[in-house]
């Protein structure tokens, strides 16, 4: 069965409605010439799917009180272990200041205040100043709900429950002609031509058994970019959050984040035998950084010192159940709804894949190697290097989404018209999506389980060459099995199982690249830890990985990090500036 295809034209097309996509729509509308048609397309509902909404902690921005853009920048570079693209990190820190003002003054967010009425800011791990602006621990809801209502009220064309499945270039391959999508509600293909396209679909490493991102996230953006031949950087860099809820394989609750603040407030991590193990590994105990705690929990799990579901426990009760229930109201309620007593009892936890630092190679204006294609947010690589600081994620998506809107609005002025697609690529992408209709019907779900098991076991928190090689082989096998697994095509309207198949195809493609890039990085930096290469390596000769699809295979190369602003070990802070402005706890 071959569904029908509609064609559709617009001027500016935006994929995704997280912080990046919604900001891009608002900025493009201001920057573009009058009469420009702007279309925003999203795999779910506007503002509802994607991960910006799930931001708990907050938004990093230097707003004085001793803090400076320079200090924010240095924390970002040091946190990223000298791998970030320094120009991108600088633009992020610098633009965050006007972006937070825009969020409060124009978009209508209201962030928490100090008694004197100024914005309240706190310090997350890895920050040397109280920098994170927040709305309680539900910052993302405030940002996205306010952005969403602004976009809903504007004359922007909305394509909801439209998933992008292919970037279609022109016949000469020099520019992007448009994006092939599926209107999920009808099951029809829709090819949308646009002069400029922003890809802001979000990363989201959901190919791991335990993961935090929302269910719609399946790396479709990076899989499309890979097929389009674009270079992807830092693809080995998967950030794990140490404490995801663990409640069994059968429940979607498993993997969702129990917030960082629980450990900061004095929560204990206990192994299956009830032993508080963190001090066996690190003098900071539970207050060690995310990556360290994740590795320690993983090690306990490998030793078999586990709770009934195979993780460890977080225990808060010694702080007083009333205190915990008051301080972590939302988290305690969420656990209670799901049947767990966080305030007084023990809750099983496990490290969980949280954020993807890797992404498409872009410049500081979000432009890519393909004319007409722009990338922002978690789909873009470079700003975070090997590790993202808490609070830099939503800053990144909103800063660069806004920049993309400005730049697209300006660039279309010099673009004469819409471009025609390469019909062969368009046809190949349609055939790729229709592949399961010609095969014997099978079950997609068990394959996703298999993929998640192998990525967790072999390309996860702690890696070795042997395990990564095994992961590459197994992912290839799972991908091959998927290609022979059929989906019923009687009705394609809102056929979730077809979309499960397409999700799996994206996840398999990107999983292979994660394992391959991890194999290529023979040292341990930030989120990437090689047991066979535990040292961080020489900082002066730091490199980042670049992966490119070449024919049927992917080539991974190393490129030297350019220290355009500061060299390893150096600083741009004035002489005599204190190491940190944060009072010791």
């Amino acid at each position, binding site marked *: 069965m071959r569904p029908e295809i509609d064609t559709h034209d617009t001027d500016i097309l935006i994929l995704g409605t997280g912080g990046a996509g919604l900001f891009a729509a608002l900025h493009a509308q201001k920057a573009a010439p009058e009469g420009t048609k702007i279309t925003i397309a999203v795999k779910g509902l506007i503002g509802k799917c994607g991960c910006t*909404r799930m931001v708990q902690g907050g938004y990093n921005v230097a707003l004085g009180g001793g803090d400076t853009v320079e200090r924010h920048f240095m924390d970002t570079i040091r946190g990223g272990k000298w791998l970030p693209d320094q120009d991108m990190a600088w633009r992020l820190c610098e633009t965050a200041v006007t972006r937070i003002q825009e969020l409060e003054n*124009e978009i209508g967010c209201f962030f928490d205040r100090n008694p004197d009425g100024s914005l309240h800011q706190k310090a997350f791990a890895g920050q040397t100043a109280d920098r994170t602006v927040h709305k309680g621990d539900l910052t993302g809801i405030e940002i996205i709900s306010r952005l969403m209502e602004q976009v809903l009220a504007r004359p922007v064309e909305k394509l909801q429950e439209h998933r992008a499945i292919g970037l279609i270039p022109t016949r000469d391959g020099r520019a992007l002609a448009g994006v092939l999508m599926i209107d999920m509600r009808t099951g029809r293909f829709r090819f949308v031509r646009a002069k400029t396209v922003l890809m802001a679909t979000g990363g989201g490493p959901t190919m791991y058994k335990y993961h935090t991102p929302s269910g719609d996230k399946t790396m479709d953006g990076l899989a499309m970019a890979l097929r389009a031949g674009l270079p992807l950087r830092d693809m080995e860099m998967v950030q794990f959050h140490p404490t995801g809820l663990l409640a069994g394989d059968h429940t979607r609750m498993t993997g969702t984040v129990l917030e960082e603040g629980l450990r900061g407030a004095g929560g204990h991590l206990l192994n299956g035998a009830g032993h508080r193990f963190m001090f066996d590994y690190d003098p900071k105990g539970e207050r060690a950084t995310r990556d360290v705690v994740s590795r320690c929990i993983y090690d306990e799990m490998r030793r078999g010192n586990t709770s009934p579901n195979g993780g460890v426990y977080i225990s808060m009760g010694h702080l007083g159940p009333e205190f915990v229930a008051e301080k972590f109201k939302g988290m305690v309620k969420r656990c209670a709804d799901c049947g767990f007593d966080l305030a007084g009892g023990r809750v099983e936890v496990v490290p969980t894949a949280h954020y993807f630092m890797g992404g498409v190679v872009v410049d500081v204006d979000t432009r890519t190697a393909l004319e007409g294609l722009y990338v922002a947010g978690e789909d873009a690589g470079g700003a975070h290097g090997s590790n993202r600081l808490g609070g830099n994620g939503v800053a990144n998506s909103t800063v660069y989404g806004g920049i993309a809107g400005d730049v697209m609005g300006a660039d279309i002025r010099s673009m004469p018209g819409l471009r025609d697609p390469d019909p062969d690529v368009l046809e190949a992408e349609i055939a790729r999506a229709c592949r399961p209709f010609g095969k014997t019907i099978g079950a997609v779900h068990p394959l996703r389980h298999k993929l998640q098991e192998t990525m967790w076991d072999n390309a996860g928190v702690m890696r070795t060459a042997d395990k990564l090689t095994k992961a590459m082989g197994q992912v290839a096998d799972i991908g091959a099995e998927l290609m022979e697994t059929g989906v019923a095509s009687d009705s394609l309207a809102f056929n979730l199982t077809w979309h499960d198949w397409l999700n799996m195809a994206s996840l398999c493609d990107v999983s292979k690249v994660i394992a391959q890039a991890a194999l290529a990085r023979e040292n341990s930096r930030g989120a990437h830890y090689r047991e066979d290469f535990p040292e961080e390596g020489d900082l002066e000769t730091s490199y980042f990985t670049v992966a490119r699809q070449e024919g049927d295979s992917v080539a991974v190369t190393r490129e030297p990090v350019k220290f355009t602003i500061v060299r390893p070990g150096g600083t741009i802070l004035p002489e005599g500036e204190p190491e940190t402005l944060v009072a010791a706890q």
Partner: protein
Amino acid sequence: MVAEAQNLKVSVWRGTGETGEFETFDVPSRESQTVLDVVSWIQQQADPTLTYRFACRVGMCGSCAMMVNGIPRWTCRTHVKKVSENNTLRIEPLRNMPVIKDLVADMDPFFDKWVSAEALHHPTSTRNDAITPVDATTPERQAADAGIECINCGICYAACDTVAGNPDYLGPAALQRAWTLLNDAKDGGRIAILDAVSGSGGCHNCHSMGSCTRYCPNELDPMSAIAGLKRETFRHALRRKRDA
């Protein structure tokens, strides 16, 4: 973990638009199991044609609300044990919205009304201005904060009998957002908001039956927000008359 012996009997609405019927599935009962897990199990293990919607899994996005045994709930945060009656569940798409397919409701009317209620910020300063200091302890700010955590999941809208009887009624969520803005010192749209919420589909349709407040999973109180709007629109009308 060992599955418990007794299965759940789950009736699920199947269909599109106005036509459809319930279909029953036997679903293994588990220790930690939400209604969303039940729906997912059916699609993954029993009937791959079932359609439903979810995203965040943790009660932040408001995509997965459905009617569960007649009551609108976030399925991701509703434990089966709390809602099953004699091991049975009846799951339907959200009330008061058109059905796209099976358990998926069309939320567009809900959001169209959000916009109609002027339920969006009206700026009084720009990105080039410093952030306005705000005393968070004033009664106005606390009234604004009371409704700020709404995630627009549509549960209050589905619960509302006035919406059921009057499709033009803006509904509790949009009106609560309007009330939040009226109390926000930074918002410059006071007159536009009062005009928007005092029209034919506006706040005066509310009969204070209170389902919105009773069923809000975030424990917000749209009914009181609407009562606030009624008072303000009344004063506004009096002032207009006097000034006329």
